[in-house]
């Protein structure tokens, strides 16, 4: 009896021990793998969030390892809850040497002490290749470089040519009024088959932004994300015309039913089935319709419409960050060599030609051929595409009190209301939050009285 009791107690302790040990099992694996690497080899761990290009990256890693037999790179795609995974990795001293970083996370990760600056490692030649596209709080923090850009999201109005022809429309809309009218015409001829004029993935906060940002940035010159660079203040009035147009589309019954709760993938699936006349998205769409949702419909894409047909600014290109180096890395020199190679014109040209994205690096954009993917031609850089400076939007929303702008705007689009009052309230609250964010040192973005998005025209094409 006594022996049994002690055996049970021992078993319980073993179980508890194994549970507690779970936390450190990765570490043990890492050590074991390190042990597996050939003697004298430097082991690098590389984390990415991108699944779509993982085959290409793995191929490039093999190539690099072939050129550098003394380096062994372990590549992991950590697609889900990436930011949390990175937080945990750094707090448990298991951080990767090289990591993919999103634009919005650069200042935060620098402040958390995760990232090593490139300044000590980057050569003047390499720096000069990127100098024209480096952006404060996207690539640099307090004047130091922490990541460099590679590809960009080029935003377009994507439309179903078959539905346009059926509705008797010959050209994609160039003004908001035309967009509203076209959506109405498409719905009139398509509704019986379940096809509607316009759709948006309004389940996510990005639903509104996917439509409003391209239209507003190409129409106006003062800023983006609601931030007016000229005054250094938030002014959501920049979205007024776009919001009114979207409200009109809902009132006309030309917005696809269910858009309020639509995700981007179900939206794409519906577009591929010919149920959507128009929607807005970026340069990843051709590869989506090639692999994820192969479609029989004829589709095309065009520059976003503007408020009055005038292209005063540039359609925002979301870009800015790609690879970063861990401050905790024990092999920074080796990690940098690999990063440098990944950013080389050769690798980045192969990346674009492989169809994984459209490069914003001028030397690559000039040399790389268009990828062999149907529809990519609509998304290649034009004079009217440009990278905006970073706004303090993320830092501000981190201090915001009350309803976020995405909920306010979505509510207006689907239920109406006093738009001027809503905009005024948003301006007051966001500017109060901005003041707090500046006081707390969350952002260093300042007013640029001379800013004009018109100056960004032509910045991504070498003529």
């Amino acid at each position, binding site marked *: 009896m*006594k022996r049994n*009791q002690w055996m*049970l*107690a021992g078993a*319980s*302790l073993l*179980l*508890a021990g194994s*549970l*507690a040990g779970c936390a450190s099992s990765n570490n043990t694996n890492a050590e074991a793998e390190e042990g597996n690497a050939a003697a004298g080899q430097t082991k690098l761990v590389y984390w990415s969030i991108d699944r779509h290009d993982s085959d290409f990256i793995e191929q490039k890693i093999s190539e690099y390892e072939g050129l550098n037999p003394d380096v062994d790179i372990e590549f992991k795609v950590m697609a889900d*809850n990436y*930011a*949390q995974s990175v*937080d945990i990795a750094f707090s448990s001293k298991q951080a990767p040497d090289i990591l993919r970083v999103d634009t*919005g*996370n650069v200042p*935060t990760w620098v*402040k*958390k*002490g995760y990232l090593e600056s490139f300044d000590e490692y980057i050569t003047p030649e390499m720096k000069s290749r990127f100098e024209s596209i480096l952006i404060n709080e996207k690539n640099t923090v307090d004047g130091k470089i922490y990541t460099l850009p590679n590809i960009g999201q080029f935003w377009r109005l994507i439309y179903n040519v078959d539905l346009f022809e059926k509705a008797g429309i010959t050209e994609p809309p160039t003004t908001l009024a035309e967009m509203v009218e076209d959506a109405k015409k498409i719905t009139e001829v398509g509704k019986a088959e*379940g096809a509607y004029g316009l759709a948006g993935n*309004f*389940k*996510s*906060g*990005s*639903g*509104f*932004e996917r439509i409003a940002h391209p239209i507003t940035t190409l129409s106006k010159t003062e800023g983006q994300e609601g931030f007016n660079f000229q005054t250094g203040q938030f002014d959501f009035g920049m979205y007024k015309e776009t919001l009114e147009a979207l409200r009109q589309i809902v009132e006309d019954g030309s917005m*696809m*039913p*269910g858009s*309020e*709760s639509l995700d981007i993938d*179900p939206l794409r699936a*519906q577009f591929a089935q010919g*149920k959507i006349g128009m929607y807005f998205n970026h340069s990843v769409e051709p590869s989506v319709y090639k692999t994820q949702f192969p479609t029989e419909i004829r589709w095309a894409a065009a520059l976003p419409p503007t408020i009055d047909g005038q292209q005063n600014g540039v359609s925002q290109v979301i870009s800015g960050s790609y690879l970063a180096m861990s401050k905790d890395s024990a092999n920074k020199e080796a990690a940098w060599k690999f990063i440098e190679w990944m950013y080389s014109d050769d690798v980045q040209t192969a990346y674009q030609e492989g169809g994984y994205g459209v490069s914003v690096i001028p030397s690559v954009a000039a040399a790389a051929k268009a990828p062999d993917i149907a529809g990519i031609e609509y998304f290649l850089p034009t004079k009217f595409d440009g990278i905006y400076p970073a706004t303090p*939007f*993320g*830092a*501000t*929303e*981190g201090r*915001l*009190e*009350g*309803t*976020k702008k*995405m*909920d*306010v705007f*979505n*509510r207006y689009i*689907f*239920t109406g209301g006093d738009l001027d009052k809503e905009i005024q309230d948003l301006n007051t609250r966001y500017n109060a939050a901005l003041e707090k964010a500046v006081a*707390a*040192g*969350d952002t260093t973005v300042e007013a640029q009285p001379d800013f004009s998005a018109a100056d960004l025209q032509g910045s991504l094409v070498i003529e």
Partner: protein
Amino acid sequence: MNGTKRQINAWTFVAPSLILTLIFGVYPVFWALKYMFYDYQGFGTPLFIGLDNFERLFRDKDFWHSVVNTFIYAGGKLIITIPLSFILAVVLNRALKGRQLLRAIYFMPTVISASVMAIVFYVIFNSYNGMVNQLLLGAGIISSPIDWLGAKYALLTAIIIAIWGAIGNYMLLFIAGLQNIPEDLYEAASIDGAGPLRKMWSITVPMLGPVLQMIIMLAITVSLKGYESIMVLTEGGPYGKTEVMYLYLYKLFFPVSSGGSSIQQFGYGSAVGFTTAVIVGLITLIYFYVSKKLNDIY
């Protein structure tokens, strides 16, 4: 066995779960109790701000709106789930052919993850090609698709999904309670001429008293804390119409949606966490006080 040995044995058995509870249950509570007085976003030096987070919380209409949504969600779920699972338990506690299979079928949703459940229900309820609309349209009950996940019906849809997911679980707990009622009480009542309804009201319900009290308490706390399926289904939208307390809290610690800030708000989140815990605790206490009679009857 002497006293010391007995103590050692007892502590040996208690220690593993106690250690894990202290690390993963108690420590985070103390952590939150500290940081609810700080301005802290997960990096830099936390700044002591006294009661500012609570002042903000009382001004925060979105939070109180989520509290109201939580009450509607939990109330709607409980009002349907408890009677329905009780009736099912009574029916499936009888000598019914195939009752084990039926019990298993009703219990099935309990073992399915809330997120998976929500994805499946998204396919069923979406307005453009969802099965519910197709069935209703086919039967001529509706003339145009209903936007089940839109502002008007999204909370109702979330309640329907919650009911579907919970009935089997509470049914099983009721069955366990029913099986503890001595059969001779029913036999004596039958001899006295009591009908099925009389037996249900005068024997089953009172004899279930303490079990019923526990089941309802469990159902209240689980419903007030539920958010997982809503997070997958609507992320709290459209524009906050399905935002519930714990989803609101979760988003402060782990921002989920693209298009918003990805900055964590540990300080304010801790204050919200403390307040939600107090709300759930108070409701549970009130329930215990009100339901004291359920315990007395037995």
